C-alpha cells in the first residue's frame, strides 16, 4: 500500500512540474477586450510573423489591465499593447503627469526595475480622453481648444461615461482646471452611445476616446487640452525582458512601429473594424502593407 501511495505522489509531482508555463519556441501576444487593443496586438503578431522565424500565438480578449499584467508577469503572454498613462496610474499607482516624455521614461524605468518588463517605442498616438463637439459647432464658434470652449460650456448639455464621471482624473479635475460649470448636470451614458447622441443633438459635448473611429466618421472635433490636464496615454508595446533575451529580433521588429500610427490613423483603423465591420486580421494586414512594414 505504501508503494502505490508513493507512485501516485510521484505522478502528481511530475505532473505539477511539467505544468509551469514555458514556450521558448514561440511568442504569445495578448490584448485587452476592446477593438483598439486587439487591432494593435494583431499588428504586433503579423509584424513578428512576417519578419522573423517565430511562431506567434494570440491570447486576445483578456478582460482588462490587471489581467494582462498578471498574465505577462506569469509568463503566460510575452507581449501586449498598453498605454503609458494607464501603466502609470493603474499599475504603478503613481500620480499622473502631463509630460509625454517624462511619463514614458518613468514607466519604462519602473517596469524594468520592478517587473522585468520593458517598453517598446511609442507608436505615435495618444488615446487620451477626448472632449468632442460637433464639427459644425466647432467651425461656427471657431473653437479649437477647451479654454476657448469654456465660455460656452454653461449652456451646453454634456454626456460622459461612468468612469469619466467617477475618476478623480476625470470630470472633477477637468472642471477644476478649466473652470467649467454646466447649468444642466452632465448625463451619464453608455460609452457606445455617446457619439450618436452628440450627432443627434441630444448632447453638445461628449467625453470619448481620442482615437474613436466615429470621430472622423461623424465629423466630430476634439477640443485641444491646452492646459495639459489629461495625462498622456501613449500606446506602447509591453514586453518581457526574458522574451527579448531569448528572441532579440523582436526589438528591431517592434521598433519599426515607432511613431507610425497617428491619432487620425488610429481613428481610421478603429472605424474600419467598428464602423465598417471589416475583419481585424484584414485591417491589420492592409495597414502593415501600406506602411511597408511587411515584405
Amino acid at each position, binding site marked *: *500500500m505504501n508503494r*502505490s501511495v508513493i507512485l501516485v505522489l510521484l505522478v502528481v509531482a511530475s505532473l*505539477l512540474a511539467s*505544468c509551469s508555463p514555458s514556450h521558448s519556441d514561440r511568442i504569445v501576444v495578448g490584448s485587452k*477586450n476592446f477593438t483598439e487593443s486587439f487591432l494593435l496586438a494583431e499588428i504586433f503578431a503579423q509584424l513578428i510573423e512576417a519578419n522573423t522565424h517565430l511562431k506567434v500565438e494570440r491570447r486576445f480578449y483578456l478582460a482588462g489591465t*490587471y489581467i494582462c499584467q498578471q498574465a505577462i508577469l506569469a509568463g503566460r503572454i510575452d507581449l501586449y499593447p498598453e498605454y503609458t498613462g494607464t501603466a502609470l496610474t493603474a499599475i504603478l499607482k503613481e500620480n499622473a503627469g502631463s509630460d509625454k516624455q517624462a511619463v514614458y521614461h518613468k514607466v519604462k524605468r519602473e517596469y524594468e526595475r520592478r517587473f522585468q518588463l520593458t517598453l517598446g517605442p511609442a507608436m505615435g498616438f495618444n488615446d487620451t480622453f477626448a472632449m468632442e463637439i460637433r464639427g459644425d459647432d466647432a467651425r461656427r464658434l471657431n473653437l479649437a481648444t477647451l479654454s476657448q470652449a469654456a465660455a460656452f460650456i454653461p449652456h451646453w448639455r454634456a454626456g460622459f461615461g461612468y468612469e469619466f464621471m467617477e475618476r478623480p482624473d476625470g470630470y472633477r479635475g477637468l472642471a477644476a482646471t478649466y473652470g467649467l460649470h454646466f447649468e444642466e448636470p452632465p448625463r451619464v451614458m453608455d460609452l457606445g452611445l455617446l457619439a450618436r447622441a452628440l450627432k443627434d443633438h441630444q448632447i453638445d459635448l461628449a467625453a470619448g476616446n481620442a482615437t474613436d473611429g466615429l470621430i472622423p466618421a461623424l465629423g466630430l472635433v476634439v477640443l485641444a487640452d491646452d492646459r495639459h490636464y489629461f495625462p498622456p496615454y501613449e500606446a506602447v508595446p509591453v514586453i518581457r525582458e526574458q522574451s527579448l533575451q531569448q528572441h532579440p529580433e523582436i526589438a528591431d521588429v517592434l521598433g519599426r512601429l515607432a511613431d507610425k500610427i497617428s491619432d487620425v490613423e488610429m481613428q481610421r483603423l478603429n472605424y474600419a473594424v467598428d464602423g465598417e465591420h471589416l475583419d481585424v486580421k484584414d485591417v491589420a494586414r492592409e495597414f502593415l502593407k501600406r506602411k511597408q512594414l511587411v515584405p
Partner: protein
Amino acid sequence: MNVFRFMVQNHQQVLELTAEHLRLVGFSTLFAMLIGIPLGIVIAHRPRFNQPVLAGANIIQTIPSLALFGFLLPLPWLGERSDRLAILALTLYALLPIIRNTYTGIKGVDASVVEAGRGMGLTESQLLFQVELPLAVSVILSGVRVAIVISVGLATIAAAIGAGGLGEFIFRGLAMVDNRVILAGAIPAALLALLADFGVGWLEKRLQPR
C-alpha cells in the same frame, strides 16, 4: 462540430491552458492535504479542538469565491501575483472536505483494533502510520476527491482575476460572444473534473480496508 474543430486548430493553447489549470488545482490540493490531513488527525485524537477547527473550515467555505479572491489581494507577496493568490484561495476551499474526511476516517477505525495495538506496545506514531492511516486512507481519499472536483470548478473563476487556466477561455469567449471559445474552456474543465472523480474513486476502492 464547430467547437471540436476549434479546439483541434488551437490545440496548443487548449493544452497550455489545461496545464495552467492543472497547476492551480494540483498545488492547491497538495497544500490542502499537507495542512488538512495532519489537522484532521489532531482533532480526531483530541476532540477538544474538533469544534473550532471544523467550524473554521466551514466558514471559509461559505465565503463566495470571487469575494475571497478580493479579500486576499492586499496580501504581500501572495497578492502580487494572481496565480499565487488563486492557489491560496483554492487551498482554503479544499480544506474542509479534507479535514472532515480525515477526522471521520480516523475516528472510524475500529476502536478494538486501536486498543489491541496500543496494548501490544505500539508507539503512538506506529499506531498512526501503520494502523490508523492505512485503515482510514480510503475515506481520506474520498475527501481529496471532493476537494479536487471543487477546485477544478473554482479554478475556472480564478481566470477572472488573471490566474489563467481554462476559465480564461470562458471569459474570453464571453467577451467575444463566441460559444466555441467558451466551450473550449468549459468542456476540458468538465472532463478534468470527471477524470479526477473517476481516477481517485478507483484508487479509493483499491485501498478500501477488507
